[in-house]
């Protein structure tokens, strides 16, 4: 695996690859963190709308919908902060990955059941005109986020990470 630091004296190609990975992981981490911050922020400004967006999927009972709708935006913000700071990077990436997989399931299930809703991914949500649904875009976009999160989960080490500063990533560079 690339996140194993090259041992001293290794061929320069290996360390070059490792350095490249550190930078790629840094960019991917910041992008994914930014996405999570934005999606959390856009939802937390209107919590009732977030609850309605959850109901519109018709997947969870009424007793659960307000908890998800009210709690999800803050959860996304926290994941975003962790990713941007690079703190508990792998854990945050796995959390994001699981969330995205759940979203992917929710969106495709809404599509399959013939609902005409906006995914509410970045605020909003609810029923829209059937001609205005963008399920393909939403699913592909979500798939992209899944790939980014998977990359970070596999190669969490990166530059400018708090993990390194607090000693959670002490391997030599």
């Amino acid at each position, binding site marked *: 695996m690339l996140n194993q630091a090259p041992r001293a004296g290794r061929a320069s190609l290996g360390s070059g690859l490792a350095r490249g990975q550190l930078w790629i992981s840094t960019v991917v981490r910041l992008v994914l963190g930014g996405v999570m911050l934005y999606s959390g922020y856009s939802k*937390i*400004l*209107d*919590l*009732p*709308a*977030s*609850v*309605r967006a959850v*109901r*519109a999927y018709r997947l969870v009972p*009424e007793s659960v919908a*307000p*908890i998800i*709708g*009210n*709690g999800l*935006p*803050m*959860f996304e913000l*926290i994941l975003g902060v*962790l990713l941007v700071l690079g*703190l*508990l990077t792998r*854990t945050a990436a796995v959390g994001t990955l699981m969330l995205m997989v759940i979203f992917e399931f929710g969106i495709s299930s809404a599509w399959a059941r*013939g609902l*005409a*809703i906006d995914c509410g991914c970045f*605020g*909003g949500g*609810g*029923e*829209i*005109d*059937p001609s205005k649904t963008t399920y393909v875009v939403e699913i592909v976009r979500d798939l992209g986020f899944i790939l980014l999160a998977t990359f970070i989960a596999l190669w969490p080490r990166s530059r400018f990470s708090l993990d390194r500063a*607090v*000693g*959670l990533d*002490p391997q030599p560079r």
Partner: protein
Amino acid sequence: MPTNDPKPSKANRRDAARAKALALREEQRKRDQRRRAYLVTAAVAILAAIAITVTVIIGHSGSPSLSKIAAPAGATANAGIPIGPDGVAGKPIRDGAIVVDVYTDFMCPICGQFEQENGAALDELSKAGTAAIVYHPIAILDRYSQGTQYSTRAAQAAAVVADKDPQHYLAFDEALFANQPKEDTVGLSDAQLAQLATSVGVPAAVAATFTDGKFTDWVTAATEQASKNGVSGTPAVMINGKLIPPTLDWRVAGALKTAILAAGAPASPSSSPTSS
């Protein structure tokens, strides 16, 4: 570095001791790291749990309970404004009438189109006493008015008219749609809302109270109730408490009226249904 030498020399023994010390130090370092990771994870998890719990509590307290707040006179327990056969708001739903719930947001362009295409037919059924029309002015599009909460303000104004000047409710509702602002604009100002109300006959003294926001909580609760009833967008129409199927296209002339008449009156004595 372990050695295979059966009889370790002094130098070898020293090396072995150093290796052992190194291994011990490495193990200590790993233990420290594990502990740090555990501490950081625990701290973040606790903070996250608190932050999420607080948000959920704030979210819950932000949705007022319909039963505990002031509602416009004559509003149904289901947060609707029933229209009597005389066109006056707040009249109790007559037994034997087909109950038609109409959910609209004054910012929603398709709701405007709905009013235009079906308003007359609904009025006709209402006047004939065949159907009881129950309007639900809700606010799901507040984010499309650049922060002025137009959906809530307009619905609140409508609720005030229903409460204080119910005979002009329908006229005000129609005027709001006729003068509907475009999405992503600030919408009508409070003064313009008041002006629009007086232009259809609402007394100025009533229009002047729009800014008090007496029914703002009611609009919020009514919106929440609509969502619980299964309304996930506007316009939404329920006939006898059941959402019309997506296959029923109200844009087709006469389609909605036909469906209402075909439904017939509900079997049980009707009050506005509480949920779908």
